[in-house]
């Protein structure tokens, strides 16, 4: 059983999951064991933000830090996007594409 994702969590791609652009169809997708999740533009930016490769001398980003970066990137109110991002991440964790 998993509780909801919080801003203090750090998430990463689950074992066997990779982010890749489909070279025939053009869209971005997460590929995992026997499964594919097609990402729209928003979902792609969220995945990139939460799995951002940190500097080697810094800890990995938290979900909260990623939300801050997305708010800045899209010039959107932080509160508005936070709930959407947390819901999206919860869904991707439930489907086994991301892990905490």
């Amino acid at each position, binding site marked *: *059983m998993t509780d909801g994702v919080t801003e203090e969590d750090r998430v990463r791609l689950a074992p066997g*999951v990779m982010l890749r652009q489909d070279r025939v169809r053009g869209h971005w997708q997460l*590929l995992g064991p026997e499964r594919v999740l097609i990402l729209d533009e928003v979902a792609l930016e969220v995945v990139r933000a939460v799995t951002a490769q940190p500097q080697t001398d810094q800890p990995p980003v938290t979900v909260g830090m990623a939300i801050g970066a997305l708010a800045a990137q899209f010039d959107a109110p932080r509160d508005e996007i936070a709930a959407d991002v947390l819901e999206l991440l919860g869904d991707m964790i439930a489907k086994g594409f991301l892990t905490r």
Partner: protein
Amino acid sequence: MTFCGATIGLEPPLALLAELTHRCPLRCAYCSNPLALDPASRELDTAAWCRVLDEAADLGIIQVHFSGGEPTARKDLEALIAHATAAGLYANLITSAVLLDRARLERLRNAGLQHVQIGFQDTQPAKAELISGFPGGQAKKLEVARAVTDVGMALTVNAIVQRHNIDRVDDFIDMALELKAGRIEIANVQYYGWALKNRAALMPTREQLVHMDERVRARLPELKGQLVVDYVVPDYYAKRPKACMGGWGRKFLNVTPSGSVLPCHAAETIPGMTFDRVTERPLADIWANSAAFQRYRGTDWMPQPCRSCDQKEIDWGGCRCQALALTGNADNTDPVCDLSEHHGLLAEIAAEDGGTAEAPITYRSFSL
């Protein structure tokens, strides 16, 4: 959407099942390989498989499933995985695990392998080995499963469910958790090939299926976010057919050890089919134009009640091989559908073969 021999509107396939070999040290009574197996001398060589993988990637395939038989019996598996990965394909390995060890798993991982799916015949060694005919198999599988996650790859436990193990579905789930698998496939045996031959020895009773179904559904909430559960509901007790292979010739193709290209791995059981070979025709041409793929693609081939059914582009008429196995004609509506005139057959077979009497098991064998 109709195809009518043209490629307009035809979407590229998503997945390739690459059956590298029919050789296998196990002799599972439920094996879905054909009764007439390809001998090693007819297997495609490394260069031919590499060309198939390149053509598959160009065609739009995104995942390749290296399977068999036992794919690790091929010494060139590392080379094929490396080639697939370089071509941009996501590589899965479908294995019995009994020929693997940690050193080879590391080599496969380094070649680009992402995911290993290990088939388990039971949770109890003696019972597992009754089905596989392979002494010592269970301990080896557990050892290899642990090494898979240890070296950083994703692990799926494939629980192949039939009468003799169906009451232990909870144990299968617990085993998957203990092995740190990310995914479990709870797959009720599909009765083709060797499994059809052994249906009387393998088919569970309705009571067993109801109990299993309750147990799986009861466990799902606690597993969310921890273990992905792919659960294949048994056909013989269903009311609507599955969209077999996501629809014939819509998403999937299968290349046999000797290079025949099939719309599904059991398609060779259908009489009157002709299959093109990767050694004679490009894969893209086969996908678009091969007679085998055209035969049941789309909806034009459908008889009634499918033709006028509003589900026809959801279940695509169900499974051709099952229609054949049960009604004697692959052109019929899958009798799993309760709108089929043959639906009553399922209850008869389930009552007859799903009985509790102990029927003898015929082990898969190579008779060349």
